[in-house]
C-alpha cells in the first residue's frame, strides 16, 4: 500500500522460547485510525514497541513513513507521538513542568504548545499538583498531552483510556476522533475493549496469541459480520452432526450445550428443524440474528469474548 504510514513485514518477536509476536503484517494508512484489538497479553504492546524500535525485532521489518526506524530515528521520531503502557513522568514535578521538559527536549518552538496540549486533554495549566498526586486518569491524560505536544503526524497510543472514567473515555475518544478527522492525523490505537475500538477505528486488526488473525476496514468487517441463525436445541453435539451430515455445512459454532450459531443463513430452516426433530432433538428456538463485533471476535479468536 503506497499510503501506508506504518507497514510491518512478517515481524516476529521471540523471548527465550516464547513467541510473543508471530509474523505480523500490519498496514496503517495515512489519515486513518487503526484499532489493534486483542486480549491482555495478546502482543499489542510488543508490536507497538517493535514498530517504535523500542524492542528489537527477532525477524521481519517494520517501516514508518516508508523507512526503517533504525538509523532514521532523528527523521522519524519527531513525526510520532506515543504512549506505550502506563505513561511515566517525574513524580516531583507538576503536569506543566513535566511537559515543559519534554517540550524542551523536543525543541518545540511553539510558545503555547504545553498549554494547548493540556487544554486538549482537560488538565489545568500551571497548577500546583505534582504528578505523584495525580489520579490514574489524570496520569493517562498527561500521557496523551505529551504525545500530542509537538503536533505529530502519527500517534501510537497503547490503551490510552486505561484508568479513565466513562466520561473521560468518551472525551478521549472524541478528541482522538477529532485529531484524525479534523487534523488528518494517522492513529494506531490498541485496546482490549471492543466497544472502544468499534466506535473509533476505521481499520481494525485482531490479534490473538501474537498472531494477527484479521486485518480489515471496519466497514468491511461490519458487512462481513452479517447474520446468523441462533439455534437453541436440546443437544448441540447431535445437532452439529446432523448439520454436517445432512446439510454439508461446517459453518457453525457451538456456544454451549444448548446454543449453536449457524452462519449459512441460506439454509432452509424448515428443513433443518424437521431434520433435527426427526433425530429426536428438541428445537427450543431458531431465529435470525445479527452478529455483533464481539461475536465475530469470539469466532475469529476461537475462544472467549472480550470486554
Amino acid at each position, binding site marked *: 500500500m503506497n499510503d501506508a504510514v506504518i507497514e510491518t513485514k512478517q515481524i516476529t518477536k521471540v523471548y527465550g522460547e516464547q513467541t510473543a509476536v508471530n509474523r505480523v503484517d500490519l498496514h496503517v494508512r495515512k489519515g486513518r485510525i487503526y484499532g489493534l484489538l486483542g486480549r491482555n497479553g495478546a502482543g499489542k504492546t510488543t508490536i507497538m*514497541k517493535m514498530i517504535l524500535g523500542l524492542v528489537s525485532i527477532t525477524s521481519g521489518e517494520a517501516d514508518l513513513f516508508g523507512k526503517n526506524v533504525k538509523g532514521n530515528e532523528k527523521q522519524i521520531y519527531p513525526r510520532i507521538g*506515543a504512549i506505550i503502557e502506563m505513561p511515566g513522568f*517525574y513524580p516531583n*514535578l507538576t503536569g506543566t513542568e513535566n511537559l515543559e521538559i519534554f517540550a*524542551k527536549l523536543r525543541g518545540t518552538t511553539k510558545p503555547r504548545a504545553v498549554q494547548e496540549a493540556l487544554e486538549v486533554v482537560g488538565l489545568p495549566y500551571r497548577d500546583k499538583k505534582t504528578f505523584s498526586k495525580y489520579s490514574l486518569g489524570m496520569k493517562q491524560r498527561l500521557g496523551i498531552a505529551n504525545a500530542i505536544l509537538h503536533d505529530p503526524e502519527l500517534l501510537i497510543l497503547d490503551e490510552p483510556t486505561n484508568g479513565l472514567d466513562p466520561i473521560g473515555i468518551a472525551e478521549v475518544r472524541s478528541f482522538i476522533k477529532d485529531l484524525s478527522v479534523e487534523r488528518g492525523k494517522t492513529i494506531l490505537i490498541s485496546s482490549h475493549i471492543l466497544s472502544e475500538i468499534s466506535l473509533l477505528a476505521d481499520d481494525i486488526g485482531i490479534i490473538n496469541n501474537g498472531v494477527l488473525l484479521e486485518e480489515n476496514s471496519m466497514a468491511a468487517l461490519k458487512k462481513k459480520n452479517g447474520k446468523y441463525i441462533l439455534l437453541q436445541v436440546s443437544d448441540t453435539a447431535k445437532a452439529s452432526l446432523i448439520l454436517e451430515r445432512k446439510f454439508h455445512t461446517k459453518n457453525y459454532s457451538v456456544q454451549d450445550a444448548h446454543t449453536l450459531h449457524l452462519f449459512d443463513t441460506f439454509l432452509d430452516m424448515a428443513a433443518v428443524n424437521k431434520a433435527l426433530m426427526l433425530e429426536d432433538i428438541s428445537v427450543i428456538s431458531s431465529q435470525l440474528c445479527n452478529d455483533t463485533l464481539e461475536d465475530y471476535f469470539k469466532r475469529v479468536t476461537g475462544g472467549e469474548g472480550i470486554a
Partner: protein
Amino acid sequence: MLNLIQTEFLKLRRKNFIFLMLISSLLMPLLAVFYFGAAKKADITPMQFYKWSAYSYTSWIILPVVLGILGTMLLYDENQNDMLKQLWIIPISKLGYFLSKFVIVFLYSVLFMMITAVCSILAGILPGTIPLTADSVSYLFLKCFEIGALAPFAMLPVLAVAASQKGYILPICVTLVYTFLGFILLMVNMYVHPLSGMTAIVINDMPDIVMKQPIDLKSAFLCIGIWSIASIICADVTLRKRQ
C-alpha cells in the same frame, strides 16, 4: 546536549534531599573544630587543619558516598517510572542522557567541595584556631576544586551501575562497597581503584604525607581514565540493550 543538561536542572525541583545532602559538607569542618579545640595546641598550621576538615575523610568517604547517592537518585525516577522509552522516542541519545547526568554530578561535586572549603575557613578562623593567610586559602580552594572535579570521574562506575538498574538498592550498596574499597586500597595499591588514584593526585604536592607507594601522577590519571571510559561504554551499552 545543552538542552539535556538544562532539563536535568529542571528535574531537580522539589528534590529537597539532594540539597540537604550538601549539609554533609559541614561534617568534617565541624569535627575539625572539636578535634583541634580539644587538643588545645597552639601551633596548628592551616595545612594541618585543612587536612582534617577538607582533604581527608571528606574526599575519601563523604563525597563519594554523597555522589553515589546523587547519581542513583538522578537515574532512579526515569528507571523506576519506566520513562526511558518516552525519552528514547524524542529522540535523545543514550550517551548524551548518561553524560548529562554526569554533568550534574560534576557540578554538584564542585559545589560540595566549595562549600567544604568555605566552611573549613570559617571553622578554622572564627574560633581562632588558625590564621587567615592568602596562600593557605588559595591552596585550599585549589585542592577542593581538584577533589570536586576528580571525584565525579572516579565515581563513574557507580553511575554506570545505577544506569543499568531499575531499583536503587544495588547502586547504593555498590556505592558503599566501592567507596570503602577505594579507602582500603589507598594503603595497598593506589593505582587500581579510581578513588585511590584521585587521592594520589590530590596529595601529590601536599607536605608531610607519607604513602607506602611513590606517587605517580601518570598511573593515577591512567587508572581514573581507564575506569571512566570503561564505565561510559558500559553505561551506553546497557542503556541501548535495555528493552
